[in-house]
């Protein structure tokens, strides 16, 4: 029944690995940049707040596919030579997903009582230390379910790197399909694969949500 899939399994799974790789880079960069974006969104300094807010609101209104194209066109101009689609895609994803993680972090930061921050400052800690040891760890733990959900979305989004020719799973599936024309099997397979990963991820997120709701520790 799934013979076309089995025949091409290594090829297809190799593509899947590319999705995973891209997701890892996107998440690492997106989380880091997202932390900065979140901090920027709660900043009282207008020269930080307004540019960051503009950046977030701008990117959240544009399709990710278009952002991927835009970076695909922009990067060669900036860097001076043609880039590997993986790098271009990774940059697009980091910049794009950072807006979503940024908003999640912002919600996390805003849930921290002002007095807790005052308590940290009153022991002589400066902003960078307070952010690093207090704000970010607490916000991250509180928003973990949302972070996991967003990570799942990011993983799904990596399929869009298809459009710039990245040899990820969807592109490889279409390539195999153009030869074998066993579309139902092939597309079902990639759908099922994504489904399994994302479904497990959403269960994990629910588990953490339940856990933090019961514990109410943080």
């Amino acid at each position, binding site marked *: 029944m799934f013979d076309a899939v089995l025949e091409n399994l290594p090829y297809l799974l190799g593509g899947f690995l590319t999705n995973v790789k891209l997701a890892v880079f996107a998440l690492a960069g997106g989380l880091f940049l997202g932390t900065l974006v979140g901090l920027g969104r709660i900043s009282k300094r207008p020269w930080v707040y307004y540019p960051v807010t503009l950046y977030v609101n701008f990117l959240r209104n544009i399709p990710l596919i278009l952002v991927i194209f835009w970076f695909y066109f922009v990067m060669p101009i900036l860097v001076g030579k043609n880039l590997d689609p993986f790098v271009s895609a990774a940059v697009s994803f980091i910049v794009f997903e950072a807006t979503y993680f940024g908003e999640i972090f912002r919600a996390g930061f805003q849930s921290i009582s002002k007095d807790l921050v*005052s*308590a*940290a400052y*009153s*022991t002589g*800690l*400066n902003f960078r230390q307070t952010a690093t*040891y207090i704000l970010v760890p*607490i916000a991250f733990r509180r928003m973990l379910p949302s972070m996991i959900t967003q990570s799942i979305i990011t993983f799904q989004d990596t399929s869009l790197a298809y459009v710039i020719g990245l040899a990820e799973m969807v592109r490889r599936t279409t390539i195999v399909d153009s030869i074998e024309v066993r579309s139902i099997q092939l597309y079902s397979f990639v759908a099922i694969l994504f489904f399994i990963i994302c479904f497990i991820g959403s269960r994990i997120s629910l588990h953490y949500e339940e856990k933090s709701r019961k514990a109410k520790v943080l």
Partner: protein
Amino acid sequence: MIEIKNVSKWFGDFQVLVDIDEVVQRGQKVVICGPSGSGKSTLLRCINGLEPYQKGEIVVDGVSLSDPKTNLYKLREKIGMVFQRFELYPHMTVLRNITLAPIKVRKKSRPQAEKKAMELLERVGIPDKAGAYPANLSGGQQQRVAIARALAMEPACMMFDEPTSALDPEMIQEVLEVMIGLAKEGMTMLVVTHEMGFAREVADEIIFMDAGRIVERGRGDEFFKNPKSQRTKDFLGQILK
């Protein structure tokens, strides 16, 4: 060591501090009382630079807060502060709560900081809780940890913002005892509280604030027995029932 000269503060159009004048000498214990919204908490936060003020000047140990060159972080090392809701870092153990600032700000080594932290925990009576998380502690224990955390930076002065208001009655005494102990050791203290028993025992000066102003100040029993202003009389009447 703390001089507050003619300080006023506005939140937008609303004036929350009106011409506050006060001097706190080293070793003095000053208690501030008054109805909610009178500006007592705001005044404390102005003293360690957590809140800005628009008019007047606050000078701590010779350093003026109005001076743009003043390093607020260094200044905050000198003043320890304890908050109504304890505000311990929930994701860290009690020990780490206390040692975080000494390690990161004073650059002490971990063993050094932990040794000092354990001494402080002994002093506040709960050395056995060093490895526990704040969520596992009672309110009274958390507040005592908060006091130890503030003391870890070896401040010259300690400020308390309604330290017992969020506590169940049975736990108020254990925290007050720690504070009385501190007072007896000669710590300069600025305490916002409704605990008049504590004020009677420990305070050199009691200040009554209302609507952003200092309405009356007095020493010990004199303040309680012969309040001069009507507002003070009314307020004391309320809380000393």
